[in-house]
Structures are given as structure tokens and as C-alpha cells.
């Protein structure tokens, strides 16, 4: 099920939250609405943790994680690190990374088995990603953009990438990641998928501006409502394509 949400008038959900199969991190916001939206969907299944990173609320872009681990930038304070470590399940390894490119959420995109990283990321960071997150690492670009974490979002069941990704790139990425991929937008035409959408294997959250068509595509490609990606081709064809010639 995909839910629309808003953080203090901003539709960039992916900036203020991080969602994985084992836990969810949420920024400390002005109103409790944001937190309760997540709680309502995820309660009793996985812990929803309020956190800040380096004193900021843009936690979604600063950290990267999956069910195996969580990587935080070096600027994370000790108290923040301790708080997160305490609240997360024990099997999740929480680690600080000393990396020049500190916005890890923008540089790294991952699911529980495979990850894409920024082409200029350090060797040590790449090894940490492989160890802590337990994933296979690939240096890739998406539609010519090196910020793979910003322009894509994928789970173990599917993925959504920058709308200008070519068919060849889509095929290549899809075979690397071993999940079906779709090029699309979120938040009424925004290309920054990572900022507008957070998703795990059974639920997704996106900004309030997201149109019904975008939501359909999301629910379809991430298999959130027992639908096959072929639905995009069959049932939704009429609404997505104007002419065939």
C-alpha cells in the first residue's frame, strides 16, 4: 500500500525519513502528523525511530541502510549514534563512515542484496558498504547522474529510477540489481525519486503532490498490491500512452 504524506508543507518525504524492511527513521518535525503517518502503517511490525543526524532533520539524505545495517556520516554526534543504536533491532549494525561525500543517502542506493554507489566514493567506504550492509556493490550512474541515491529508489521487489533513463540503461541496471525497474516520476513530475519517495517490501510513502498515475506505477513496480508489473503495460496503457504511432 502506498500512502501520501507531507512533512511541514514539504512533499519531499525521502529527505526527512528513511524506510527499510527492519526499521524506520523519522526526522523530528514541527507537528506529530508525519510521525503518526508512519506509525499508523508500521506499528508493531518494525520500530519507528525519531532521530536527527549532525543536528539536522535531513536524515533521509544523510544515511543509508537496509535490514542488515545502517551507515551514518562522520558528522553524527555520539548521542545521536547511541540513540539510534539503542532503538534499532540488535542485528542491525550501525556504523559511522568517514567519507568526504557525507550525504550518504544521495550517494548510495541499496536494497538487502545489492547496492549502487556514487562513482567517486572511496574504496574504504565501498568496502564498508559491502561489509556492514551485506550487499554487492556496483559503481553506476543513472541517466548520467552520479547521485544514484537521489535519482533512484529500489527494494527487493522492484525499483523506480529517473524518468530520463534510457531503455538500455534500464535493462543494464535491471540485470545488475535483479529486480524489475521502471523509469518514472514522483510528486507531480519531480525527477528526484530518492527525495520524494521511501519504500520497503510492503509499503511506500510519497509526497502529497504525487498524482494517481504516479501512485499506480509505484504500487505496481514495487508489487505493493499483489499486482504484476505487466499491469503497467496492459491495464494502464490507455492512461499512460496517447498514441502508438
Amino acid at each position, binding site marked *: 500500500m502506498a500512502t501520501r504524506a*507531507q512533512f*511541514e*508543507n514539504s512533499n519531499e518525504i525521502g529527505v526527512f525519513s528513511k524506510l527499510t524492511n527492519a526499521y524506520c527513521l523519522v526526522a523530528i518535525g*514541527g*507537528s506529530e*502528523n508525519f510521525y503518526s503517518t508512519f506509525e499508523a502503517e508500521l506499528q508493531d511490525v518494525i520500530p519507528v525511530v525519531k532521530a536527527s543526524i549532525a543536528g539536522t532533520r535531513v536524515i533521509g539524505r544523510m544515511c543509508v541502510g537496509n535490514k542488515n545495517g545502517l551507515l551514518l556520516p562522520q558528522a553524527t554526534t555520539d548521542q545521536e549514534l547511541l540513540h539510534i543504536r539503542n532503538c534499532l533491532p540488535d542485528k542491525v549494525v550501525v556504523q559511522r563512515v568517514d567519507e568526504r561525500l557525507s550525504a550518504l543517502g544521495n550517494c548510495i542506493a541499496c536494497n538487502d542484496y545489492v547496492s549502487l554507489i556514487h562513482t567517486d566514493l572511496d574504496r574504504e567506504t565501498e568496502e564498508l558498504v559491502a561489509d556492514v550492509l551485506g550487499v554487492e556493490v556496483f559503481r553506476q550512474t543513472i541517466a548520467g547522474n552520479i547521485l544514484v541515491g537521489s535519482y533512484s529508489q529500489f527494494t527487493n521487489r522492484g525499483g523506480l529510477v529517473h524518468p530520463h533513463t534510457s531503455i538500455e540503461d534500464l535493462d543494464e541496471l535491471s540485470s545488475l540489481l535483479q529486480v524489475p525497474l521502471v523509469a518514472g516520476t514522483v510528486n*507531480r*513530475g*519531480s525527477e528526484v525519486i530518492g527525495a520524494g519517495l521511501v519504500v520497503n517490501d510492503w509499503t511506500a510513502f510519497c509526497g*502529497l*503532490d504525487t498524482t494517481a498515475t504516479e501512485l499506480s506505477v509505484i504500487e505496481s513496480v514495487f508489487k505493493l498490491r499483489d499486482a504484476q508489473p505487466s499491469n503497467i503495460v496492459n491495464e494502464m496503457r490507455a492512461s499512460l500512452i496517447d498514441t502508438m504511432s
Partner: protein
Amino acid sequence: MAALGKRKAEKSPTPSSEEEEEEAGNGNEVTSGSEELDSDESTDPEDELNTSSDSEHSSQPSQEIVDVDFEYFDPKPNDFHGIKALLRTYLDDETWDISGFTDLILAQTTVGTVVKADEDESPIALLTALNIGRYQKCSCMVEIHKYLRVKSAHKVESALLEDFWGKYAREVALLISERLVNAPLELAPPLYQGLFEEILWATEDEPTQELRESFKIKHYLYLTKVFEEVTEEKSRDKEQRKKQKEESEATGQLIYIKPEDEILHELSSWSFTFPVTGDGAAANQTKGLQQLRLVMAVDAKHEEKFQAELKKLIE
């Protein structure tokens, strides 16, 4: 709709970089002013560069002149995100239906102008007017009404405001003027001229009688941002502080972010201010300036006087 005629551009007083070229658009109103002294303009920047590089004792780095063309367009669906960004602080940090509000502005193609550096870029400035009676039932307008009602709660003007949303709603338009902070002042006169002209044409050209009536506007309601100077003595002991607070509120010198707001304020029938509660407020307070919101009602018959005063301000 009648096409815009060629307008002679006023030469800007400084040998500056903004040119506004003008053409009659075909349905797409691209308005800009033609610069007659083009050749002269191009030598001036070179002169400036030469003089600054000649004087080696000058501590200023040689400044580059950047030429920017500003063009005026009708709001288009593509501008959704840009306009939404300009309106983000319209109601301070209130959570409200900004998207719906932006959609209203985009849907009203007959009245409303957006300024951009280029057709595909983000809007730099926005000016439009929405008739309150026409859009009253939309959720975003209801939220704006509620916000203004709360902020004007114990003021004299509260009743006047209620009338604007009540019995006079059909004659009042909400004036929306937002722009980037450092947008040049010269953008304003063509913007306002365009707005008043479009409203006039709409009273003749709109398809239904009801729509034509809705553009016969008698009053404009305008919400804008201003700063107020806060006296330094406020930080002294408590009693003095209380006294100073009352005094400084009474003598608070208003600083207008958009210069034409000052003219509008002088011409307004009534107005009131209220403090801002968002994150921006705290930052500005330390510099001796407090951020406020100013709400004012301007009678439509002052249109010409306003435009004349604005012209004088530019020169």
C-alpha cells in the same frame, strides 16, 4: 484578446545589464522592452572593465556585468513547482493546501503573469489577482481566510476583513505578488501594468457574464512581508523593556522588501501587521529587524495613481 502593442522601454538609469525586449505575442504574452541604446550599452561595460583593470591600486576585483533578459509569460502548468516554491512562505509556517492554491493560479490563464529569465527556467516573480467571491469555496481560500481571521483577532480591522470575505467578496480580489528577494525593482511596473490591463480585458472578453462581473474589482486585499526596526535598548532591564516595547511598536519604522509595497501602503484604505512565527523570524530578530506580515486593502480606483508613483520611484 487584443494583442499587446509595442511599448517603448524606459532606459534604466544605471548602465546596467537588464534589457527587456518587447514583442507582441501570439497568445503567449511575451512582453519585454526594446533597448534602443544597445550599441552604447555594450561599450559601457567594457569601459568599466578597462578602468577597473587599469587602476592597479584598486582593492575592488574587476566586476563583470552579466546581461539578463527577463520575459513575462502567462502561468503555465509547467510552472507548478516554481510558483509553489514562491508561495511556500505565503502563510508563514502554516500547513495548508499550497498545491491547490497554485492550481487555482495556473487555471486562471486570463489574468496573471510570471517573470522568468527564459521560458524553461523557474519563475522569478509572480503577480496575479484572484477574485475572493469566485474562489471562496476552494479549500485553500478557506484556509487563507481562517489564517487571516486568527491573525486579525483583536484588531479593529477584523470586521473590515470579514466583510471582504462576506458581503463584499465579489468585488474584492486577493492580490498575490511574490518574487525572489533580489529581483530588480524594474520588473514591477510592467508587471502591474500587465495585471491591470488583463483585468480590464477580462471584463470584456470572458465567455460568461458571471466571469466578466468577477473581474470588476473594487478592492484589492494584499498580504506581504515587511520588516520592522527594533530598537536596541530593548535588551535593558525589564521595566525599561516594557516601556520600550510599547514605544518601539508605535514608532516602528517599516522596511518594505518590495519597494512598491510602500506606495500601496500609503494608498491603502486600511491595513494591519502581525508578527511572523516561523523559523525565519528568529534569525532576523538578532539583526535589529523583526519580520512582520502586512495585510492591506487598496481601493481599485487608485490604480493610475499607483502606477504613476511607481514610475517615479524607478527614476
